[in-house]
């Protein structure tokens, strides 16, 4: 997914230090992106927090262990990007993403997971996550993904067509239509208008879809 950005880690270290002078140069008054880190593993959480705090254009607002705590913080504080582990012990990263996207000022969501494949990508579509990053790429690639989603891009791995077919069969007709539109990158507000749904109606359908897609043998669930 992000391989193309840095085909070899070696040169990346030399050329693109994370303390992004390039970024500073581009947008002169540097407004750091406000990040929320969510991981239930204390050492990983601490490591990620320190790593991201080292980056000049990032500010880590909080590093939390649970999805519920993250929703609380995101309701009170302005968050630009939530950086979330897929597995959180209780509620998972997709649940959190779905919750965060209901907020008045929804943050962008980057989900990282040991297993990133089409199945997780499909569920992430229903959860409206913006990017998926493999756990092996929690360095410069993660920083790049954060910057991209903060500027409004989406960066999900493609769902292979045959897999999409298998998944689609798990959804009812209306959900299939919503799934197809989300896959095509259409924003939920537009989808609601097209299908003549209220935003609450769409929301309940998205939750139902997420539940159906998540009961899959996703490589991302233990």
């Amino acid at each position, binding site marked *: 997914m992000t391989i193309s950005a840095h085909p070899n*880690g*070696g040169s990346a*270290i*030399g050329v693109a*230090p*994370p*303390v992004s002078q390039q970024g500073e140069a581009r947008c002169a008054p540097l407004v750091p992106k406000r990040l929320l880190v969510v991981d239930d*593993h204390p*050492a*990983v959480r601490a*490591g*990620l927090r*320190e*790593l991201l705090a*080292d980056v000049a254009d990032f500010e880590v607002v909080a590093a939390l262990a649970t999805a519920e705590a993250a929703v609380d913080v995101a309701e009170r504080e302005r968050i630009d990007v939530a950086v979330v582990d897929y597995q959180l012990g209780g509620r998972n990263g997709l649940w959190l993403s779905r919750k965060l996207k209901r907020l008045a000022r929804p943050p962008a969501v980057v989900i990282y997971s*040991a*297993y990133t*494949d*089409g*199945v997780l990508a499909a569920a992430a579509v229903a959860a409206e996550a913006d990017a998926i990053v493999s*756990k*092996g790429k*929690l*360095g*410069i690639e993660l920083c790049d993904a954060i910057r991209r989603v903060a500027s409004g891009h989406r960066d999900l791995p493609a769902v*292979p067509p*045959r*897999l999409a077919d*298998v998944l689609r*069969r798990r959804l009812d007709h209306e959900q299939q239509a919503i799934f197809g539109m989300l896959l095509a990158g259409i924003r939920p507000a537009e989808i609601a208008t097209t299908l003549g749904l209220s935003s609450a109606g769409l929301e309940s359908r998205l939750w139902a879809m997420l539940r159906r897609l998540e*009961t*899959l*043998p996703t*490589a991302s669930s*233990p």
Partner: protein
Amino acid sequence: MTVIADQEGRSKEAAVGDPHRPSDGPHRRYLPLLYRAAGINALLVLAAVAVTIAVLAPGRVSSLALDEEVLVLVLAVILVAIANVYLLRRVVGPVQALTALTRQVDFANLGQRMPGAEQSSEAGELALTFNEMLSRLESERRDSAGRVLRAQESERLRIAQELHDQVGQELTVVLLGLERISWQAPPTLCDDVTTVRNAVRKSLDDVRRIAIELRPEALDDLGLASALAVLAERFSERLGVDISDRISPDLPALPDETELVVYRVAQEALTNVARHSASSRADLTVEHARGRLTLTVRDYGLGLPRHVTGGSGVRGMRERATLIGATIEIGNRHPGPGCEVRLEVPLRA
């Protein structure tokens, strides 16, 4: 007599096709019940006839005159002997059939039963109880196969979770630390740090791959056909082997453990294709015909080496197949190139 028994024994052995069966000795060391009973009866009849003649017509016996009465008596004796053998055969026949069936009973070939199992005779009763015993054993076998498979699966799940929760997380922490160090390291150290970091990434990838292979996919939720389609998709995606799957859409409902074995055999076979075959494509086929489910995984690669001993993967496939009474053939394709794994599962009516 011994010769006949010998031939019988050998032909049965050939039909069963398992030379390791200890009870299937070629030599029968006794005279069959039928001949013993028939012989004794014949002797008794002869004795009776001799006595009758001696009592009723002692004069004629000494004269050895071959008149009509003697002829009638001899014919009568022969008739009695034949009727005797015929009747005895009807009684003893089921016992011999039972012996033959007992030799053939095999968990690779479930569902065999004695015909004529009814409470109309001792033989019928014997067949009836024998069939009941077979049913009991088969159901017990199914239960224990299910238990073994479930135990294997839960153990695999546990290991996969441990790998992910422990080793994977710790490696992630190391990787995060190395990233930070690499950002601050002086240029002279950059290459070394990068090398180490790439090694850790590789380990993390390995842990993830092993955990994925160990993890049971939710067959119960998707059903066998869809689960296999997803499996093929994942293999194509991750390992760069182009897998074309042809899965019969109308698969019958199968017992859980059967689905699990079919799935695991497919997974193992595809893993072998990716690891050893050097083939860039493979076919995955599941068909359902004439009371059998057939899974075939075919590749177009190097084929098996001449003296393949079969690693733990191949052994695992065989063991799993045995648990559900299925047969598995693993071999090179003729004409080649490549190798084929074929699993045949008999379906119970």
